[in-house]
């Protein structure tokens, strides 16, 4: 066939080795080069590089990477199993060997149909670009950042406020974007209320300190009440009108024109999932939905535990499905720069004759969310929120309250304090005037 295959001894192992990580391959290449063995043959050099006058001279690293990519074992490509078996039995080991053939030749030699041969070659070409100029500027793993870039991003990152300033403070500003947050709590403590409040708060215009986004609500428990959301939205609109009234700038008034009850409700996209299959299916379809509705900044899954807590005899399947779900949600949070929130139930753990309430779905589920908020009651029947797990804020507990207007701070009545001016920062609520409504 005219191709020379490298004897196995150069690679230092037997032929049937599975794909090894690129870094290891490179190390070995470097060490072999140091020994004076340089096995790039002239006829294998791509045209763009062999003196055709291309202006960019590829860096040695890019060349090494290209070379390593070409030598990648076929088993690491997402080919269909039947085709892969046939290719291996025909003696093909690496991508490079395949790329030299045309589809018709490949199909004849291996015994697969022409369409399958074409598909296989396309898959390999897509993952292993022959064009060197692509390598010159872009690194192989395109999602590499330095910590400085991440720091800049984090500074400009928005938060979704909850209207409870104590809670916002312990969370560093509110629910952060690009991260997943879990809200656990006993029934009736306010998890769904917080979710509904956030679905309204994500739409607050930017000049008031919000992120001006839309929300997706995946409901598995059926506890979404439209009338309540309408109440929350009305209260939010009134609150913003009050703030805008004290500002003389035009942009506040203009932003408020589009911020009405109708627009808030039309930007909450609601899906009712009756069982875990529908939930899984909808999460599979969410990336396409996000492409169509690019302003979505918040995904809420209300009741991620509910469909998984019954009908599951096979716990390992449940763990696998939950982990897959969590991974998809995390990748959506990262790629589309949105916040993902899910609510979890509490379950009783009996430990040495003492029972305590712990979040449901097991210990391993605790790793899925980046931030964990636990809502609970205390002895005096007031509601507390504890920031249980967070990578950047310390653990703290605050009081919160749920009023007719929604999720708010607990108001400590102080009749002697003078009326406070509404401050410039719209996140800080004024103490009086609002609560008397």
């Amino acid at each position, binding site marked *: 066939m005219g191709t020379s295959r490298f004897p196995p001894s150069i690679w230092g192992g037997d032929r049937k080795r599975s794909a090894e990580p690129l870094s290891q391959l490179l190390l070995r290449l470097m060490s072999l080069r140091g020994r004076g063995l340089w096995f790039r043959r002239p006829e294998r050099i791509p045209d763009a590089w062999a003196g055709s006058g291309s202006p960019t001279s590829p860096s040695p690293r890019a060349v090494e990477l290209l070379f390593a990519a070409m030598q990648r074992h076929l088993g690491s490509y*997402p*080919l*269909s*199993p*039947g085709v892969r078996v046939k290719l291996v039995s025909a003696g093909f080991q690496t991508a490079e060997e395949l790329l030299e053939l045309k589809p018709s030749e490949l199909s004849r030699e291996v015994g697969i149909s022409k369409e399958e041969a074409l*598909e*296989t070659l396309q*898959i390999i070409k897509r993952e292993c670009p022959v064009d060197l100029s692509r390598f010159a500027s872009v690194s192989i793993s395109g999602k590499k950042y330095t910590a400085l870039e991440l720091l800049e991003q984090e500074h400009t990152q928005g938060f979704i406020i909850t209207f409870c300033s104590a809670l916002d403070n312990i969370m560093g500003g509110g629910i952060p974007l690009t991260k997943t947050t879990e809200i656990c709590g*006993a*029934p*009736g403590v306010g998890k*769904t*209320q917080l979710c509904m409040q956030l*679905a309204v708060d994500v739409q607050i215009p930017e000049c008031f300190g919000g992120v001006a986004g839309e929300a997706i*609500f995946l409901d598995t*428990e*059926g*506890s979404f*009440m*439209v*009338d*309540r959301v*309408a109440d929350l939205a009305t209260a939010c609109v009134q609150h913003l009108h009050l703030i805008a009234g004290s500002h003389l700038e035009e942009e506040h008034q203009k932003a408020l024109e589009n911020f009405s009850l*109708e627009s*808030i*409700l*039309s*930007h*909450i*996209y*609601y*899906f*009712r*999932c*009756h*069982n*875990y*299959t*529908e939930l*899984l*299916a*909808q999460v*599979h*379809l969410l990336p396409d*939905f996000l492409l169509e509705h690019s302003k979505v900044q918040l995904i809420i899954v209300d009741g991620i535990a*509910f*469909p998984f*807590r*019954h*009908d599951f005899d096979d716990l390992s*399947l449940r763990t*696998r*499905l939950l982990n*897959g779900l969590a991974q998809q949600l995390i990748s959506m949070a990262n790629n589309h720069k949105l916040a993902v929130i899910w609510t979890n*139930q*509490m*379950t009783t753990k*009996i430990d040495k004759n003492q029972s305590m309430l712990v979040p449901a779905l097991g210990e391993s589920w605790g790793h899925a969310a980046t931030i964990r908020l636990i809502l609970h009651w205390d002895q005096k029947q007031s509601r507390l929120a504890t920031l249980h797990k967070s990578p950047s804020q310390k653990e703290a507990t605050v009081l919160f309250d*749920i*009023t007719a207007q929604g999720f708010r701070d607990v108001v400590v009545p102080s009749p002697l304090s003078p009326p406070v001016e509404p401050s410039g920062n719209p996140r800080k609520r004024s103490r009086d005037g609002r609560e008397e409504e």
Partner: protein
Amino acid sequence: MATKKLTRIGLSQDLCDRLSRHQVVTCQDFLCLSPLELMKVTGQSYQGVSELLYVVSRACAPQMQTAYEMKLEKSGGPSSAFLATTLISLDEALHGGVACGSLTEITGPSGCGKTQFCMMMSVLATLPTGMGGLEGAVIYIDTESAFSAERLIRIAEFRFPSFFNTEEKLLSMSSKIHLYKELTCNEVLKRIESLEEEIISNRVKLLIIDSVASVVRKEFDTQLQGNMRERSNFLAREASLLKYLAEEFSIIVGGSVDCTRPRNSRVWVPMRPHILLICVTLSLNSNCLPLTALLPWN
């Protein structure tokens, strides 16, 4: 629709045959497999498997509605949104009455009046809409044999003497209440699963289960090790079935649950508070039996 068969969503016949050889028949089976397993089972490449996943997900994913559309739907039929309990302060606290389309739990210690409350609600549901009723039938699942037809008639007679002035009306009212006696957990579950046809054919508007906790307490002893999980499995399944029925047919579903009082506490706690939505608690603390409604936002 999780149990939608793959043959109906437009996949090619030989692909469906291939999948059924591996016991993958419904959308649910398909979505439970990982991409690698799917590649092995279908013999397609990763790209092909992603497309198949998309098609299957499309077939069983729920429809999208914006909250605004939901609000418009609701305001289209305000009269059927609530069933007023005729206890004025309770109706005020509940913003109209017991809500349609959701699950309501009625709890209290024994003897405080839960079954009486359920019987009164049954009478109210059969009244015509002009009088504040739902003009529909009632399904009453009784697990404690506490339902007394005599008492039902007495309630109707004394509560609405002007309406139930003839024996005929009383009899027609009682014929609209369908009573099922189920004494074990499995029977209760089977009965709930088979209710759809009855609900549609008899135009049922109210479903009452009296009581949810007694069957569970009889069969699951929480002192034993594995029983907690089985019990919560059963209850979660029951809750999700009831919620589905409530939402699908826009009916009122009420379950009564006993209360226990844990040691060292003065507060009565519903027996298994994890799952249900609105909790109307009857408490025995004073003479006139105040009803405290624990709403999500009070």
